[in-house]
């Protein structure tokens, strides 16, 4: 079973668990472009809750927000995270509902979106938009780093464990292509940060498809590194980040996509503000190459493991 299939089964279970849940998305009634709604489509009892719509790039997030305001729990299966950029003005709007005067209402919508390299598409599909989403108010943004966490994150996000705000779950295409481990738990779990490796020399903040190469680089280089997976990209857990930075005094931030004005900038800024006196070395950001990447070059959007290893090695042993 691959990650997509296990997510598909989890989505069907989510529909069974709460009759307010509905699935939206391109070709949702026939399983969807990625197959995420396949298990639900195979269950006749769930089929009425697969909601097909024409292509509505501008209004889909706002439409889903309206469904939520009417009492439903829509789960929107996007074909690409880039669709959130096309519907950004509407996404911003539904994030604001809770903050408006005139009576608070929240719009508990979950957007599940594949992102990054992995399918050979290049261009917009490999653009990292976390920092743009994080700048909007009232939005929760999560990401999946390891295949075994995909279902737990999905379930946690769909049950709005943290807050009944509009929520985005970014699932790297590299993770989708991986096999789903047998021992993966289906219990929801949405930790804002997870210390997935402990060490004393340096602290690496990372998320998404960068997590695995970071862990591999640390292991291969026998680095005494703490690795913190940022599971919740927005809002960031400032205290946990600052504490982990202070613990070692050497900080690296590694993620897919270009680094300039990316989410790593905010993490670096938090460290420079709240952990500066603990730092023994400049903060390091490692990401993919700048610019638009053609389909054939899409892996340039990822930090290669060799580059990660070299950078972390130098930070650990200057």
């Amino acid at each position: 079973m691959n990650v997509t299939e296990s997510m598909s089964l989890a989505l069907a279970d989510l529909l069974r668990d709460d009759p307010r849940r509905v699935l939206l998305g391109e070709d949702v009634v026939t399983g969807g472009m990625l197959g995420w709604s396949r298990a639900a489509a195979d269950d006749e009892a769930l089929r009425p809750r697969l909601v097909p719509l024409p292509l509505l790039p501008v209004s889909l997030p706002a439409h889903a927000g309206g469904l939520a305001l009417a009492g439903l729990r829509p789960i929107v299966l996007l074909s690409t995270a880039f669709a959130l950029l096309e519907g950004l003005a509407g996404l911003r709007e539904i994030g604001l509902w809770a903050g408006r005067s005139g009576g608070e209402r929240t719009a508990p919508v979950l957007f599940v979106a594949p992102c990054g390299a992995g399918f050979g598409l290049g261009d917009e599909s490999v653009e990292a938009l976390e920092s743009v989403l994080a700048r909007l108010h009232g939005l929760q943004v999560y990401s999946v780093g390891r295949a075994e966490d995909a279902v737990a994150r999905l379930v946690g996000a769909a049950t709005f464990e943290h807050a009944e705000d509009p929520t985005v779950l970014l699932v790297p295409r590299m993770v989708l292509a991986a096999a789903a481990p047998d021992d993966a738990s289906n219990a929801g779990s949405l930790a804002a940060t997870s210390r997935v490796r402990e060490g004393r020399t340096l602290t690496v903040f990372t998320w998404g498809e960068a997590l695995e190469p970071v862990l591999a680089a640390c292991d291969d280089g026998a680095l005494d590194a703490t690795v913190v997976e940022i599971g919740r990209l927005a809002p960031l857990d400032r205290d946990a980040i600052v504490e982990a930075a202070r613990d070692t005094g050497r900080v690296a931030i590694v993620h897919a996509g270009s680094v300039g004005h990316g989410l790593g900038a905010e993490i670096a800024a938090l460290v420079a503000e709240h952990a500066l006196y603990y730092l023994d070395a400049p903060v390091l950001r490692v990401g993919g190459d700048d610019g638009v990447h053609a389909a054939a070059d899409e892996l340039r959007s990822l930090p290669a493991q060799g580059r990660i290893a070299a950078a972390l090695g130098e930070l650990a042993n200057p």
Partner: protein
Amino acid sequence: MEPTPWDPEGATWVLDADGDLADGSAAVGLDVRNYYKALVAARCLDVRLSRMNLPMFASSAGEEAPLCATALVARDEDWIYPGVRDIAVSLTRGLGPDELARRVMSDGPGRVGQAALRIASPTAALGMHLAIAAGHAHGQRLAGTHAVTFALLGEGTTTAGVFHETLVAAAARDLPLVLVCRSQLWPSGAPAEAGLVGDSVADRARGCGIWERRVDGADPIAVWAATAVAAARARDGKGPSLVEVATTQLIHDPPAHRDPLERLRRHLDRTGQWTSTYQDVIEAEIRGQLDRAFAYGTEVA
């Protein structure tokens, strides 16, 4: 009556310029005096707000009929999504003058929503409230209720992509959504921003397979009747509709019969339901309420 150059083409009416009701059946179920009071209150509010030098405020005088009619047609369980200039919807639907004044002073006249009254807040992105309204209507339909969602807009917003996507979603899923569009008439030529393409907004909605009516906004009864039919259709599961209301803004100084208040006043007068004392009483009441509300609002702001 001869139509004047001020009267819209291809728009239905039942109340002629003199206030004679051509088709009595149009007003069945309508409390005409109550409607008139709501229109007067809306006008008084507009006058009050116009005096306040609020940033970006634009008067709605002459365009009250679709606002009040929507609020009167909507039931408690229905939701209304007004645009930024549709504050009179809230007044008619029962937002108290004090709360209304407080919200105008804090959020501005365009941002008066109230979840308890099922009135949504307008959106910052032009026309995005229409998309949320469509989703809301979609949710009502999926939940199997008979509730209706109303959304208001102006003709300028009909050129925005989100208006089109709203029509598409409503048509594709047969949503219980009633769109009420104020189409302003431009006596001396429309600006590009009025977005006059094709014959009419109603015509464009019909092209998407949506039931529509184009009515004269100077005739409050025609506006109410079209909105009521649209709402009944939505409630009966017959799908979405668009009511286009051709309005004349009083800032253009049109002849008196283009003013929906005056048109309905003539009707009440002809049918023995209006006196100048009555007018004085209802105006004094709402003016008093607004004056107190805004005086207090200004103090605390």
